[in-house]
């Protein structure tokens, strides 16, 4: 995700979530989302098999 894509994503996701931001808030949220995206890059391409299910199990 390059910088333009990141900004476009944050704007679109905020609209979808019903979040209205001032210019200052928007700049800060873009910065924070950029940090998250950078950290997530560390594992998003890590190969996992279909047997690697997530841990939480709903027990009725």
């Amino acid at each position, binding site marked *: 995700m390059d910088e333009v894509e990141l900004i476009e994503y944050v704007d679109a996701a905020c609209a979808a979530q019903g*979040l209205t931001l001032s210019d200052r808030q928007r700049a800060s*949220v873009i910065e924070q989302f950029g940090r998250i995206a950078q950290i997530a890059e560390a594992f998003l391409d890590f190969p996992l098999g279909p047997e690697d299910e997530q841990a939480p199990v709903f027990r009725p």
Partner: protein
Amino acid sequence: MSARFGTGSAIEIAAALRDGATSAVAIAESALGAIARVDRQLNCFTAVTRERALAEAEAIDARRAAGEALPPLAGVPYAVKNLYDVAGLTTLAGSEINRDLPSPAHDAALVARMHDAGALLVGTLNMDEYAYGFTTENAHYGTTRNPHDPSRISGGSSGGSGAAVAARLVPLALGSDTNGSIRVPASLNGVWGLKPTYGRLSRRGSFPFVASLDHLGPFAATLADLAACYDALQGRDAADAACAQRPIEAVGRTMGEGFDELRVARLGGYFDEHLTEPARVAVDCACAVLGATRTVILPEVAKARATAFVITASEGGALHLPNLRQRYGDFDPLTRDRLMAGALIPAAWYLKAQRLRAWFRARVLEMFRHVDVLIAAATPCPATPIGSEWLELAGLRLPLRPSLGLLTQPLSLIGLPVLVAPVPPASGLPIGVQLIAAPWREDNCFRAANALLAAGVARAPIPALHA
């Protein structure tokens, strides 16, 4: 005993009460007096529950006068992080927003268990807003200061809990740990702390942060007190969906059984790369005492830490989304934009993080076939000055606040039990080491901790307050 701070150890207090050397009301008054004198310097407490403490104390004194056998923590003052429900007191969770919530009718499950054990609740303690931080620099309730150097942070998010115990305002406190929020303040304040196995202790009646990562646990100034408190907190609770419904597996009687047969190893790689010199010295010292000559490398720890970061941001952001829409300006500036960014995380990122978490867990559990206790530093460094933004570590300039959890996050991610032992240097600020065991083997954490205590390398130093 350190009478000038108002309290001795929990076990000493309970024994003195049973022996008739003092009354519960006198103990409560002494603790309340110490809080009134000392907490102005530290800002650990957000509420002092004087009436409740005295009422609980009077009830204990009445039971003693009637000749009843007293419960194990009878007359012991304690306090809780202000995300625990206390009947009649609004559960702040470090926020301004929660002030508008109705006060709970019932105590949190663990507060009720402390009451049943005879303990006296003297107050609620400061924290990072909604537990999203490692420094307890709270815009609404102020910064909690480190008793060993009030110009420095107490760690977080259970900073009030760690500092109150370190200052001997209470012998016991309860906190919560999602990514390190018991272990970081235990390390920076030089006290004992326990993050039990995920699901061991009931979370009923505590304000959540990240449901799939939240743990509750105790702090203490002595290891014996930590064990006594943990044993009092254990037990099933069908009302908490995350509670594993285990029977009580008491550690108080087993922790002195020796550690000779325990296989102990040092965590290397990632855990060795994120240390300042004081942290490295503490780990070396613990490894020497416990005979940890072997080093274990966990796979993909940096990725595991990254998954904890994303899971935290996503679940925390989603939890607070309604208030982020309606009351953005009422959040702490240190948390609101991180929560908002977290609420925007794509589901595919979150689910990939949860799946990698399961992958990491399976591989670490495999390692516990060959080792019983792992050792790592609890924090990369001792307490830093209040307001610090950066940490120099391994030649890198890292943002300080998230980096305080570098060594704790990968372990809570997979729910392992971890006991923090304070291993202070001969002079200078305290720091702690993590004693890490396989799930449900808190007993091994305590046995290793007891060996460090017996060797004289682990202890909770008394700060020079009032000096």
